[in-house]
């Protein structure tokens, strides 16, 4: 069927027009999507399949058997990943009813009984699609069952009509000729995995349910959002010699160049000379002029490759803390490095410089004041705007009648002509604000709360190394023993609480808190707030907030963060509840590891790792000094 007047955005297609969805077309009435053609999608396939795997793990194993295991790369060829491009559909359902005489039947049967192809009944009345279908928890969709028998009273087989009072229990099939009752709506049983999981005996869920075509529960697409870090970087970066030290150097601010470039340059220096064109040229030059500047420069570079100074410094710092730099760079470190190296980042200095170029000295001073307050009083060493934070959204299947994994079988979209399961993904670049705490201030805060023994280090780099050595839980995955280390929980609680407090006042950006996601990287004392949009365009709300209102927003968030409508009960109970730090949407940690005590001091939640202990020193203890002055 042609796609007359049917243009929708990709996100809309992802939620409403994927295969097996029933929708109302402006021109063709009720239709069912049969196929959605795939276009290119620039997504990290590992991240995508990890996200799908996480989502599928919520279903009992019997209810997700139609999906090949996404963990095994060899089985990922059973999937076709792409962006939704062209929606193909057919009219559905094909059971029609006459507006005048209520005669009802499948369209092909009505044609045989004398109805016209243009949609007129034998009586001359208009035919319209019946607006009910049958659906089951296993994903099965059927048209309403049309009885095939003749009327038992008058024997007519052409005059079946449908009485639709709007309630399934009272709806009846009857004979339009003699008005005799034929039967009620049939409850079609289903033989599926879901039914096998139900207890024996009568159970309403064992039958297909009659559902209006407009009911949202008829088709529930399942989508998952993920951070779409560039593909293949992990392997290349992780396996490079000294990768761990280089990434730490970059994260700690010791290495100014990108890790990818540094590793590439180091690798080319380390190759055999006959394989390196540069080396060949230099060797040729050396024969003629051994003291040539280029030769000497090459020799010096080879002696001390790019980044070696920083690698040595990291080793030295860690050795001084009795940590050996063995091991592999973990994902958080690769992610932090990738974001630094591969995204378009704007700093406060950049914005201030732009303001000054355009003659807006007041604007430049305001944002710099914001930076100074953040650094001196709030313990935030860096606030950056990421203009192209990589985000993706993918749809991997659908359920009917319910969203609940325990009550539904997840169904993949019908396979394409090559037998592959389509996965629809949209990659987008969104705006994000990236906060990084000052390691010196964090260490000082831990010390003042009695969580670390030794005094505050002299420099920022020493503080990074001390934190790396003393708080290994910050770089561990949740199942590793050190993850639950009290000081690691403390720092994560601090980061997470700050993230939520800033989100409480994110309205300054024009975004509602529910439209902004968070991403925590505790290992680098970072958190990221990003606009949860999957469109090709950017609204610029976070950018404007960063450039125009940073100072105001920070102070507002710090001030209002103290308040909770449930105080003093909330404050006494640990300072974390639905009235203050909890978020309804988008919290990656499900509102765990939160407490206003981390930033303002006071009792911690009983259910936390601190077991209600009082934190004497709040991270924002000095924040009152940031109050605007007359």
């Amino acid at each position, binding site marked *: 069927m042609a796609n007359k007047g049917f243009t929708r955005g990709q996100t809309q297609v992802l939620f409403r027009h994927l295969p097996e969805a029933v929708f109302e077309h402006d021109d063709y009435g009720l239709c069912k999507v049969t196929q959605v053609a795939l276009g290119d999608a620039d997504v990290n396939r590992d991240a995508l399949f990890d996200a799908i795997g996480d989502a599928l793990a919520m279903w009992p*194993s019997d209810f997700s058997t139609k999906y090949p295991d996404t963990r095994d*790369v060899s089985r990922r060829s059973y999937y076709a990943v792409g962006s939704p491009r062209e929606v193909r559909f057919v009219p559905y359902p094909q059971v029609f009813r006459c507006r005048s005489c209520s005669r009802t039947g499948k369209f092909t049967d009505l044609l045989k009984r004398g109805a016209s192809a243009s949609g007129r009944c034998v009586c001359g009345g208009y035919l319209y699609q019946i607006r009910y279908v049958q659906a089951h928890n296993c994903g099965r969709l059927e048209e309403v069952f049309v009885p095939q028998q003749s009327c038992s009273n008058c024997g007519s087989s052409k005059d079946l009509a449908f009485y639709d009072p709007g309630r399934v229990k009272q709806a009846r099939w009857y004979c339009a000729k003699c008005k005799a009752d034929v039967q009620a709506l049939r409850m079609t049983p289903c033989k599926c995995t879901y039914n096998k999981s139900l207890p024996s005996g009568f159970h309403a869920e064992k039958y297909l349910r009659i559902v209006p075509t407009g009911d949202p529960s008829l088709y529930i697409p399942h989508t998952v959002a993920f951070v779409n870090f560039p593909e293949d970087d992990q392997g290349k970066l*992780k396996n490079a010699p000294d990768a761990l030290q280089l990434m730490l150097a970059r994260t700690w601010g010791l290495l100014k160049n990108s890790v990818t470039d540094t590793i590439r340059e180091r690798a080319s220096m380390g190759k055999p000379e006959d394989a390196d064109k540069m080396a060949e040229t230099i060797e040729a030059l050396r024969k003629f002029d051994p003291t040539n500047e280029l030769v000497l420069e090459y020799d010096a570079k080879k002696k001390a490759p790019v980044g070696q100074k920083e690698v040595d410094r990291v080793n030295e710092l860690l050795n001084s803390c009795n940590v050996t730099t063995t091991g592999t760079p973990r*994902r958080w470190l690769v992610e932090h490095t990738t974001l630094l190296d591969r995204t378009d980042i704007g700093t406060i200095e950049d914005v201030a410089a732009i303001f000054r170029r355009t003659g807006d000295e007041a604007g430049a001073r305001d944002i710099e004041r914001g930076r100074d307050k953040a650094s001196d009083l709030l313990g935030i060493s860096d606030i950056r705007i990421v203009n192209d934070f990589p985000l993706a959204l993918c749809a991997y299947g659908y359920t009917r009648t319910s969203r609940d994994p325990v009550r539904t079988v997840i169904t993949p979209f019908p396979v394409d002509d090559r037998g592959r399961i389509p996965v629809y993904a949209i990659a987008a670049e969104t705006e994000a604000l990236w906060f990084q705490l000052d390691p010196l201030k964090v260490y000082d805060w831990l010390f003042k709360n009695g969580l670390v023994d030794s005094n505050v280090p002299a420099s920022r780099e020493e503080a990074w190394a001390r934190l790396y050595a003393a708080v290994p839980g910050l770089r561990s995955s949740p199942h590793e023993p050190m993850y639950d280390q009290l000081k690691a929980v403390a720092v994560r609680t601090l980061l997470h609480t700050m993230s939520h407090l800033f989100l409480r006042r994110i309205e300054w950006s024009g975004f509602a808190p529910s439209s902004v996601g968070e991403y925590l990287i505790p290992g680098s004392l970072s958190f990221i707030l990003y606009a949860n949009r999957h469109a090709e365009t950017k609204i610029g709300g976070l950018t404007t907030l960063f450039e125009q209102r940073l100072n105001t927003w920070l102070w507002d968030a710090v001030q209002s963060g103290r308040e909770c409508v449930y105080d003093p009960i909330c404050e006494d109970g640990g300072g974390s509840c639905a009235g203050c730090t909890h978020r309804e949407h988008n919290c990656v940690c499900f509102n765990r590891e939160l407490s206003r005590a981390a930033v303002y001091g006071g009792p911690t939640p009983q259910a936390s790792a601190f077991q209600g202990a009082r934190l004497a020193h709040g991270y924002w203890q000095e924040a009152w000094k940031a109050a605007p002055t007359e």
Partner: protein
Amino acid sequence: MSAFDTLAARVQRPDDVRRLGQALWMLTGERVKSAATLFWAKALAGANGDEILWQALLERGCLNEQGTLLPRPLAELLCSLWGEPQGDATLLWTLPEGLEVSGVDPAGYISGMLALIREARERLLLVAPFMEAKGVGRLQEEVLCTLARGVAVTFVTQDAASVGSWASDSLELLRREARGLAGVLRVYTASADLGVLLHSKLVVADGAAASVGSANLTGKALAKNLETGVAVAGAKVIELELVVRRLIEMGYVTLAFDTKAVA
């Protein structure tokens, strides 16, 4: 009678073993394509000596998938032929909190496991029917370092085919971190259809050293329960590896995933 036992019965100690060792040691790192390559063994082991030696090498894991002769298992095989006496077994313990026994390391089991993982240079095998995130988490850092060294790490467990199972959940973070590292992580899962309960708990490093015992890879087994294991070295380790390899070959367990699989 195994090929190794036949070989052991035919060669004279010490001279034949010495000659066999000299000849085989020269082949380490080389590909031994077939029994015919070992034709000289007929002089030492009699009729079909080449075939018997070839089978013994296969039995004892001396040849990898490409047919390359591996030094460590070969050394173990030669030691076994030589008749090197085995030392006393070392016991590994996890003791419940508060239980102190003089001379017993209460965290000896986990320490022993970590030492084995650290030692592995070519391949590492971990067998446990039950895995739990906290248990695998205790080994994660060392296993990742091992993978970074290019070691092939194999887990054999139950119920890892389903993505929502405990076993899958416990291995998921390790799988993600292992991506892109030089070594390969393979996970095999016992097929429930065969009705076989996988119940061994083993850690085997390079077919040269192993631990055998009662501890599953769960948080409690490695930290709180009373668990006992034995550190094993020498020929018996090759047997452990051999049995697990046959288990895989015979389809008692199937591959759940492999981090180096090609799409």
